[in-house]
């Protein structure tokens, strides 16, 4: 499992309940916007006891009566609880306080990773393992029940929706994608030209994206070694990549960053083997 699930994160609370005076609306909005745009989660609370943050520190902001923070109204252990009276602070100073608390508490710096990864619609997924067999970057794995899962989210290549196009069930979403159904919009009968998307890729590449890429790159390499014309080899590779990029909407940077043909071959075989092993276990479980 990736480190993402372990790292502590800083959470912010605007405390406006008992023992405090609510912030002026404009200041609250400006401060919240600054915090959100810098990657922090912010809760605004009124009366009642407030639930704490279970994976990291909680910074409680407010205009506390007589400067006394509402220690008993927040359900969080003291060691990871910080209070800041913001009566005299503007939005940028509030943000600065959040940043210094984050540093001081060793919490993760937001924004270093763009959260782009496949989200599986299990109402559609048939657990066929095609996505697992396809992905070169080990994003997919299986759970204890041998169900497909996105596991290494931060291995996924930003803006690349390629695996959603190999899924025969239109079950893979990238919620930040520009259009449906990959963005999570309803899957229509017309979209089940999902079949078509797949055929398109197959037609384009003769059945196997990586095989095609490999052979084109190998051809380019051979030409390179024969002709010692680096530029031509590069052109060749780029031509192939452009075609792929256009047809499967794979960002060119992603394709250009692919490893060497041998490495692609090795990874593709590994991925296929993992997919096949998962399917075999699935069959065993069914028959047991």
């Amino acid at each position, binding site marked *: 499992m*990736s480190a*993402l*699930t372990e*790292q502590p*994160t800083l*959470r912010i609370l605007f405390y406006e309940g008992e023992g405090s005076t*609510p912030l002026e*609306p404009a200041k*609250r*909005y400006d401060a*919240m*916007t600054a915090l*959100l*745009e*810098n*990657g*922090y*989660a*912010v*809760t*605004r*609370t*009124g009366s*009642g006891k407030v*639930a704490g*943050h*279970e*994976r990291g520190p909680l910074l409680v902001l407010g205009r506390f009566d007589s400067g006394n923070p509402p220690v008993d109204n927040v359900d969080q252990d003291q060691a990871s609880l910080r209070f800041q009276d913001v009566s005299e602070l503007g939005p940028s100073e509030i943000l600065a306080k959040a940043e210094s608390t984050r540093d001081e508490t060793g919490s993760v710096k*937001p*924004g270093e*990773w*763009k*959260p*782009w*990864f496949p*989200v*599986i*619609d*299990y*109402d*559609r997924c048939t657990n066929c393992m095609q996505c697992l067999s396809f992905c070169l970057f080990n994003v997919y794995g299986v*759970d204890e*029940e041998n*169900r497909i*899962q*996105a596991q290494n*989210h*931060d291995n996924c290549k930003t803006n690349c929706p390629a695996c959603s196009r190999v899924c025969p069930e239109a079950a893979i*979403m990238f*919620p*930040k*994608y*520009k259009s*449906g159904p990959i*963005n*999570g*919009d*309803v899957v229509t009968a017309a979209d089940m030209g999902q079949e078509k998307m797949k055929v398109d890729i197959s037609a384009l590449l003769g059945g196997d994206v990586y095989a095609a890429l490999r052979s084109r790159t190998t051809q380019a390499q051979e030409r390179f070694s024969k002709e010692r014309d680096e530029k031509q080899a590069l052109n060749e590779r780029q031509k192939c990549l452009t075609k792929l990029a256009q047809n499967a909407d794979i960002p060119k940077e992603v394709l250009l960053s692919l490893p060497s043909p041998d490495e692609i071959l090795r990874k593709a075989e590994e991925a296929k083997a993992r997919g096949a092993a998962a399917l075999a276990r699935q069959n065993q479980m069914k028959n047991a």
Partner: protein
Amino acid sequence: MSDSPRILYCHCNYAQVVPEETKHSVLKKLSDSGAAFDAVADLCEMAARKDPMLRQIAEGGNVKIAACYPRAVKWIFGGAGCALKQSSTQVLNMRTEETEEIAATLLDGELVPNLPADKDGSKPAPHELPN
């Protein structure tokens, strides 16, 4: 404690798919309303981190979520092992719906559940249950 649904707002901070104007107007109306609410920078990131807040929300009763497509939100939570309950969740889609309507609906205290129905009725699949 009021019976009003909890409110969760997603700022979709790392993409340009939710119109800026919509995000900011919805946030402003929420912020000015005096209501208690949670605002998160990016729900997708929280799901990848399996942030414990997702479980608090999924198990916390009625909730209205301003984010993106209901199918995406359903499985963002589901994929993190914190399945939202169909009967207690309403998702407002800031990619497609009007600002005024989203803000008014978030604050009206009523719940109109709208998550896509589960394949087999209402029973969560094993992978959707908390770990």
